[in-house]
């Protein structure tokens, strides 16, 4: 079981704040969108990259590494910021985000040297790729685990449900799906656009072992990750209840911050809140 000391908790909280600042800065600087969905991911990604995933920036293509797939590709500002902190992406590359001739764009492009396993940005297809990698891992008796990070809006896509059924049928207990359940999507709330409730029951009824946590609470997140697979012979689903725009009061739970860019006055205000 993964637990967290109070000292480590302070470290992680401070790291989360730094990453939020990096996200705000890179999106403000480049007038890029998707800040809300990036901010909801921070604690989950920090937990994964600094405590859970066996990945090595000095050997990014290690075949035995855990595989992390960001299926909600529009959340890549958060992933890039975490990969940079972890040492996968250089400061120079980060400084060219969303620029002509730059190293990083507004959706991730597969580049294992930077720790990016898969091109994504089109929703609803990361989980099927995760299935294949998990299946190969089982066949080859490898110990690696496959983590697929999904948005909740993304679960509107029917392709996910094909993959959810497949993973359970093939007993892929080396596969973990994380649902960033912030209850907002591009054009409205979950209730307005496509109700997913009861989400936990849906996954469980497909044969997954499901846990639900506060997606901004390191202790809860790490306790859950410490018990993977949640049940032997079943894929694990972590439903993380999150807040879109988390950490910046005027962005939290507001639909428009899915794709609104940060203006000058908003930038100053946001940074102040992240001091």
């Amino acid at each position, binding site marked *: 079981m993964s637990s967290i000391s109070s000292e480590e908790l302070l470290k992680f909280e401070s790291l989360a704040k730094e990453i939020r600042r990096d996200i705000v800065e890179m999106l403000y600087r480049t007038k890029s969108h998707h800040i809300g969905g990036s901010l909801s991911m921070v604690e989950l990604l920090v937990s994964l990259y600094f405590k859970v995933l066996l990945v090595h920036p000095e050997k990014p293509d290690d075949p035995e590494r855990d595989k992390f797939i960001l299926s909600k590709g529009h959340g890549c500002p958060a992933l890039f910021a975490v990969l940079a902190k972890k040492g996968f992406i250089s400061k120079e590359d980060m400084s060219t985000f969303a620029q002509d001739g730059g190293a990083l764009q507004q959706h991730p492009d*597969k580049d294992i040297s930077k720790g990016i*396993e*898969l*091109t994504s940005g*089109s929703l609803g*297809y990361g*989980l*099927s*790729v*995760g*299935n*294949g*990698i*998990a*299946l*190969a*891992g*089982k*066949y*080859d008796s490898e110990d690696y685990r496959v983590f697929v990070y999904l948005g909740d809006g993304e679960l509107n896509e029917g*392709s996910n449900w*094909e*993959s959810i*059924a*497949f993973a359970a*049928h*093939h007993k892929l207990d080396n596969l973990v799906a994380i649902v960033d359940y912030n209850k907002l999507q591009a054009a409205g709330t979950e209730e307005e656009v496509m109700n997913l409730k009861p989400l936990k029951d849906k996954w469980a009824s497909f044969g997954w072992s499901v846990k639900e946590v506060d997606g901004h609470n390191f202790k809860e997140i790490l306790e859950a990750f410490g018990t993977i697979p949640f049940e032997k012979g079943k894929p694990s689903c972590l439903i993380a209840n999150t807040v879109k725009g988390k950490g910046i009061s005027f962005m939290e739970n507001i639909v428009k911050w899915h794709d609104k860019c940060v203006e000058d006055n908003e930038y100053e205000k946001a940074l102040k809140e992240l001091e």
Partner: protein
Amino acid sequence: MRKIFFEKLKKLAREDKNIFILGADLGLKYFADLKEEDPKRFLNAGIAEVNMVGTASGLAMSGKNVYCYSIIPFIAMRAFEQIRLNLCQSNLNVKLLGAGGGLVYGLEGITHHAIEDIAIMRALPNMAVVAPGDVKEAELLAEQSVNHIGPLYIRFGKDVAESVYEGEIDFKIGKGNIIKEGDDICLITTGSMLCTGKVVCDLLKEKGVNTGLISMHTIKPLDEDLVKDCAGKYKSIFTLEDHNVIGGLGSAVAEVLLENGFKGVFKRIGVPDKYSSDIGKEGYLMEKMGLDPESIKNLILKYNG
């Protein structure tokens, strides 16, 4: 054709444990014995082609050599974005085996007809597109597909049992085959229209017209040298395919001819740009569309003056 391809593939898969075969709940009788022997490498992924191609990508990213099989619209069109993003962008070793090229599934209706797939697959960077013309080509294609690097779309048309070739053949993905040389006219075919093309050549011969016949089994990468040779040698060039005249073999050949200044007669023969409104078996529908040997012969004679 399909049967001989699968028999060969099964033989290869028994020897090479890196080969995985995924199906989408169709045509799995071909693999029933293998599924029994090694169920972990031969999976029925269910009626879920999108997940099947995505899963194939994950397997290929993990070093496996993967074949996916289904009826063409379901594998090539339903799962198109997975093919584009996963297979093609990453140049993964996944072979897509599509059954029912053209109007093979005549009576099943438009859901099963496949007249746009070559155009769609041909537009994808890194994708190779091959439609074997007869049993000999199909068997050698199975053998070569195993070592093909990158995504490969294999289109099975009408299941012909015979071969247009006498004796052994020299088959290579990306290299067209000259079946016979002609005097002034050449007919370039792809897929199982090769056998129709052979009959057309025989009919033309009866009219005293000695027509060249080429099997252009690989539509991408197209054997441009062979097309250029034809442009130099023949006054009239016809293409023949069981696919929409837009975007298939005819378009591919036309691109090369025009860019190389061909001044002769050129005509694409294929499925007109419309969905069939008739009901019938393949032979009946092909006749309705003017793709039976007699109609093709007449069209060639008309165009050739």
